[in-house]
């Protein structure tokens, strides 16, 4: 597809896994150790070159807390891709990935759910190995079982794999974009048909 390109990317995952930090690292190249819960959603825009094309990524960083889930439908509507984030040191955040993915597919109801561009990020790999609860192998097995979702191990703090992950999801989303629906030129007006008369017509 030529011309302008804008991708809507949603970041999902439990609260505290580092969604906002990943986005911040990617867009602003900054990291802060302080935790501040996202309320509702944060929005950031990033322009990126993918295969010689200038793409604008509109990133929707959603709140992980359950009390904001009612806004899900509105937020997920028309998303081009979705990043599922978990904390490699937090078993629960990995186990809920299933829920996040299902919830997204239900709410966003994309045309082809089986090929919708997801990506899974295991974040916080900068922490010491002893704290790690989910092995790379296990995470990759899960991704495999969900239709070969690409998997990245990241650290927002040390900027490991962040750039690559966003590049990958943008590329995958663009491949979906290639499947453009056909536009039928709408029919011409028939002059014979009775037209409804609007109020406020000119009497000239």
């Amino acid at each position, binding site marked *: 597809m030529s011309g302008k390109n804008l991708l809507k990317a949603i970041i999902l995952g439990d609260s505290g896994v580092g969604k906002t930090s990943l986005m911040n690292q990617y867009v602003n190249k900054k990291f802060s150790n302080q935790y501040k819960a996202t309320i509702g959603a944060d929005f*950031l*825009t990033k322009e990126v070159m993918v295969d010689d094309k200038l793409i604008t990524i509109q990133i929707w960083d959603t709140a992980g807390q359950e009390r904001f889930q009612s806004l899900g439908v509105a937020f997920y509507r028309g998303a081009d891709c979705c990043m599922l984030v978990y904390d490699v040191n937090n078993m629960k955040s990995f186990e809920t990935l299933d829920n996040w993915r299902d919830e997204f597919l239900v709410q966003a109801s994309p045309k082809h759910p089986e090929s919708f561009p997801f990506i899974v990020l295991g974040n916080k790999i900068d922490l010491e190995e002893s704290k790690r609860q989910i092995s790379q192998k296990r995470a990759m097995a899960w991704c495999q079982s969900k239709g070969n979702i690409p998997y990245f191990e990241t650290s927002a703090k040390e900027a490991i794999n962040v750039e690559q992950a966003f590049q990958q999801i943008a590329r995958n989303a663009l491949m979906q974009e290639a499947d453009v629906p056909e536009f*039928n030129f709408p029919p*011409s007006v028939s002059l014979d048909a009775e037209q409804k008369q609007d109020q406020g017509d000119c*009497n000239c």
Partner: protein
Amino acid sequence: MSNLLKENLKKQEKDGLSSNAGLNLSNLVFYNSGNATSTLSTTSTTIANAVVNSTSTSNISYSNSDTISDIRGINERLIRNKSNLSNSSSSKYTQSNKIFDNFSLDNLISPVENSDIEYTSDFGNEDNLMKIYNSSIYDYDEDNMSPYNLRKKYGNEDLTSSNWVKHRKHFFILSSAGKPIYSRYGDESKLSSLMGVIQAIISFYDVDNDEICCINTSTHKIVFLLKTPLYLVCVSQTNETEEQLKLQLIYLYNQILFSLTSVQLTKIFHDRVNFDLRNLLSGTEIYMDELSRKFSIDASFLLKAIRSFRIKNELRNSIGELLNTYRPKNILYGILTYNDKLINIIKPKKQNVHPLDIHLIINMISSTSFRSVESWSPICLPKYNSRGFLYAYVCYLNNYKLSDTEDSNSNTNTNLSSESPISPDSSKIMKTDVCLTLLSPDKNAFFELSNCKKKIEMIFNKNDILKNLSKIINKAELDIADFGIPHLRHVIYKSTKYLQFIETKRLPPYDEPSSYRRLLRSYKFLESKIHGYKKNLKFCYMLGKNELSLLWVRDDFELYASFSPFISKTIAYNDLLLIEKWFKKQDNLFITTSQVF
């Protein structure tokens, strides 16, 4: 930006609001339609210090005691002004700069029981308006810039540009997925975070099956028009009313239908809710830019009427007859315009013409360089039929100058002609500003319509129509001198029956775009008073530093006039009667009997 959303979402936390991107969101007024009870509870718990106004009921709850005292102050002022009309330039009423903020409340003018209400408003608010003007560095030079240059100048701004927030009126269009489609200023992809915020605010109310209509702050008004799959938003510091801004959003929405049709728009987003509509609309931004600009400098959009070309009935009718005689078989309308004025129109017997459709057509003609070519484009007239395309043939007519020796003729021709002769060989052919537009349902009709245009052009020349038109071009605009009233400065006369209007020439001070904008603003203010008032209000006037403007509304006409600010209200009133009498005597103002087939 997301702070704005966050604060909205903090139902329980009322610790005040942060200001963002130049929008001061303290002291908010929310207007909501839909479920009144849920609206009130939602918004009043969301916003500290809010005035909530639900359009579905007349309930108004005040949670801000300052506001109530303001209203009392204005009421007192109105009554005092009524008894002391000649001395209205009072500086002691310091609250007047809040007059616009609170005027929409229903009980404001109720103590005055007279049906022909007149009131002044001294220009504390003018100061306010001027302050707003001066804070905006861009507005003045816009009038002399082409849309292309405007876009070049402002096109790269984004949220971080200090100038971006200073624009007096922003328009945003986004898809219901929150993807940017159009922004009047700046690069819409760089504004996509803002579009996300807007989508989130709208969704917040949407979840409760409610609809956000308007946010009022002390400096800005944010108006929403939700036409799923599109959301349109205006952020304005122009003091226009919510209704006036909403109408402007409706125009922009119809401009999109004009290019796409409602069928195509619905289908695209039904098939793919994440569609990036910009690719389909590229090239039409110029129409939206031009509309956005004209809202402030063209009275057509305030009056919802067609600007008519003043011409003797005889000549107008013979033009209509010729058009009708030589028209192609299968057309909807044949339209003859001079710049932005309608000379005549031919149409099917049963079919009426909606001013909005004509405005969009005239906007298309005037926004692009059709001058030297014959143009053929699919367009949709939303009020006629939003579901299908028509094909518009647009071409300016040529004037074959037959006698070069006539001095008077060549003089007037220079007024009419916009270009020098197109080639040395055809020095007798002059392009004119008279433009013919033919609308056909047949996409293959171009050559038929083109031939038809040649015939019409020839017959017009044979009958000296274009020559006669060029002779009266100077008289086509109303001259203030015609009225013989020395302190009169400007008049607009609108026929409610024909939905057409005529305006006097813009003489000083209104040849200055900034003065003319101010005049239009005062007319807009009067219009909002007259039409916003429940009772049968007929007269409204406003005295400012620069002019005394009046509006007189009757069943069959609306008369706007502006006088020198130094004359009394009584004199202006009597003059208004004279002006009206003068208009009643004219028979050359409007298209009264158009040719039908």
